[in-house]
């Protein structure tokens, strides 16, 4: 494997980590109004992701930074091309963070309702838009010989990509529900589990539709023939397993399977792209690849050393923080309830 490919894989790992981790805190944010009855419930739900969401978001920042360093042309074309969706994501992430951080700072019902709205909107919108963005990435967008994006906002809002947005919303919501099932107070947890079971069917329909359409809309599967590879099938199996396991109350395993669905789906997307990083819909010659969009070999080598040293350290202490906060957020732990 050459160093460009290693870096492509590393960036894929960062996005996988981001979607797996932020996936459940997006889900928790999306479901906030649907699994709670009173303010204490809502504080329980928010506190399940309280110690984590900020560090989860750093996976995105690191992915962005690594993209900038390792594939400047990918970073430049993608970010200037997906301009308005990224703006919407930024605004949403700001609202969400402020909602989380400021909600408990004032003892006022209207303030808290506003914060809840910020959290719900700020979680739902990016959960949808990341699906739209990744789908567009895989589907291909108009990129010219000068590596510039030539489309507009409407190019990005095509039906297939919007369907991709629905897929990411529903999978993140499921993932979040099963996270709440693990970490929230028993009552909220059970409510979340039941919601996950109910959400599964519509999600399955969306996912199946997306799968079928991807034959005509992308070259993900057609590149390797009519029979999808092992990974897409495995992703499907994990998705099916999640509802079975949730029904059996194998709660940890159920959460792991939605997580694996996200991981495998992201792997399929990145594997399908390779060696391209951004295929052009205007012709193969204009594709951005891991070679024509990359930094110099020296930069990639320097960065690789840094990554080899620091990624394990980061994983170790993030793992530690999840271990510290492994127990359920109980009703009793909410002051004044």
């Amino acid at each position: 494997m050459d160093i460009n490919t290693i870096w492509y894989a590393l960036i894929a790992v960062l996005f996988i980590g981001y979607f797996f981790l932020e996936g459940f805190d997006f889900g928790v944010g999306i479901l906030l109004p649907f699994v709670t009855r009173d303010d204490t419930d809502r504080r329980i739900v928010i506190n399940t992701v309280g110690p984590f969401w900020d560090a989860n978001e750093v996976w995105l920042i690191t992915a962005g930074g690594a993209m900038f360093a390792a594939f400047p042309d990918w970073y430049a074309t993608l970010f200037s091309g997906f301009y308005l969706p990224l703006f919407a994501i930024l605004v949403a992430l700001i609202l969400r963070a402020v909602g989380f951080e400021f909600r408990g700072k004032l003892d006022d019902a209207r303030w808290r309702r506003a914060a809840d709205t910020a959290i719900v909107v700020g979680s739902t919108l990016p959960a949808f838009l990341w699906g739209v963005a990744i789908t567009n990435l895989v589907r291909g967008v108009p990129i010219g010989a000068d590596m510039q994006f030539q489309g507009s906002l409407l190019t990005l809002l095509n039906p297939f990509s919007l369907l991709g947005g629905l897929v990411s919303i529903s999978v993140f919501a499921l993932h979040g529900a099963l996270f709440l099932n693990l970490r929230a107070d028993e009552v909220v947890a059970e409510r979340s589990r039941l919601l996950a079971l109910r959400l599964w069917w519509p999600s399955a329909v969306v996912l199946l539709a997306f799968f079928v359409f991807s034959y005509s809309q992308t070259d993900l599967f057609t590149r390797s023939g009519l029979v999808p590879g092992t990974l897409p099938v495995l992703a499907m199996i994990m998705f099916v397993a999640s509802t079975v396991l949730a029904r059996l109350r194998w709660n940890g395993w159920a959460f792991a399977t939605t997580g694996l669905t996200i991981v495998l789906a992201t792997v399929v997307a990145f594997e399908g792209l390779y060696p391209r990083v951004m295929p052009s819909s205007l012709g193969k010659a204009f594709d951005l690849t891991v070679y024509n969009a990359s930094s110099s070999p020296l930069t990639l080598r320097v960065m690789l050393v840094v990554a080899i040293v620091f990624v394990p350290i980061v994983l170790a202490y993030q793992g530690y923080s999840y271990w510290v906060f492994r127990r359920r957020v109980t009703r009793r732990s909410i002051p004044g309830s």
Partner: protein
Amino acid sequence: MDPLILARWQFGVTTAYHYIFVPLTIGLGLIVAIMQSFHYRTGNDMYDRMARFWGKLFVINFALGVVTGIVQEFQFGMNWSEYSRFVGDIFGIPLAIEALMAFFLESTFLGVWLFGRDRLPKAVHLLSIWLVALGSLVSAIWILMANSWMQQPVGYAIVDGRARLSDPVAVFLNERLLVEAPHTILAALTTGGLFVLGISAWHLLRRHEREMYLRSSQIALVVVAVAGLLTATSGHAQAQHTARTQPMKLAAMEALWNSEQPASFSLFATIDQKDGTSAREIKLPYLLSVLAYNNTTSEVKGIHALEAEDVAKYGPGDYVPPVAVVYWTFRGMVGLGVLFILLSLTGLVLWWRGHLERRWFLRLAIVSLFLPYLANVAGWITTEMGRQPWVVQGLLRTASAVSPNVGATEVAVTFIGFTLLYGILAVLDFYLLYRFARPVAAARQGQHDSGLGDVFAY
């Protein structure tokens, strides 16, 4: 309207706004860590209450620093794609390392610190706030390394019209970083100190929890005195470095149109950019030679001479930065810096004599709370506007750095969007800080604290 102008305004507004929160995160993080260490060592409850009080203000401030920081990282690709393509090979490195080394550390251990108070051994909980403080410090160094490369590009070769890394060690140990990082970080510590001093003074004026706020203000005074003085000396080093590496910026900082030997420091001038002249000048002889070269004899080149050099080197064009802006922001920064040093020295003398609670001094301290923000932003405007028309000194012009495929409407949408959102957030943030900082809120908050300990939780 020209997308370039809009993109520049957006970058200026979002960066200046982001930089309201950053220095306080760095300065206050360290101060909270020190306070909690005092509690750990002495077991004195006062230090615990102190660390919690300032910790809350730290958290409110931290939140906005983080979210406005993501905008910064995305903005390079969104609005400045040609810049990103040109510098990515080098500039991307510190950015990626900053996220990997610093942002993970800060955010993970802030979570541990906020939610782990009752769950962790005291030593581990103390360690977590120190790791947050360390993270913000490390983050500053990497992002300043990126900025330093824009001021003084090193360790590169131009290949196919782009900067390519040739010597990573040169980038990591950029001479410019060695003057810029100390100055910026010390100014951040000064900001944190003045914040604590000002709010403590407010409580002392109201005679609220005298012992705790007296001790807080003493800690803050020591921080401001030491960091403030060193900000000045490191600033001097940076000015000397600028004289050698960015002479046009230095000339603009002084509105020095014509070369002088020895050069005098300008205290006041009215500046005419079009004619290239200044009028109504008040000058202190020799002082600019001292500032630039640490002697009273050296020549300092003027804008006209430097412009002729630039035209000879880079071809026809306008190489003069907006002089009045650079001149006045520099004066604002230096003037405020001197004020902070005087304030802290006065405070130390009063403390020595046992008169720290003189009302005039406390009032002065409250007013000074707002000033470091102006000084910080003024300093950044000086150094960034002083580099124009370049975005990377001598290599890439700002006008060539903007995204060619992003139209004026799109930039206008994001510029207006961010400005409105940031405006609302500023009001909320200020209101929350006010609520949590004011003497009465602290008393109520104190009652609220007793009982279950997860008060930092949401």
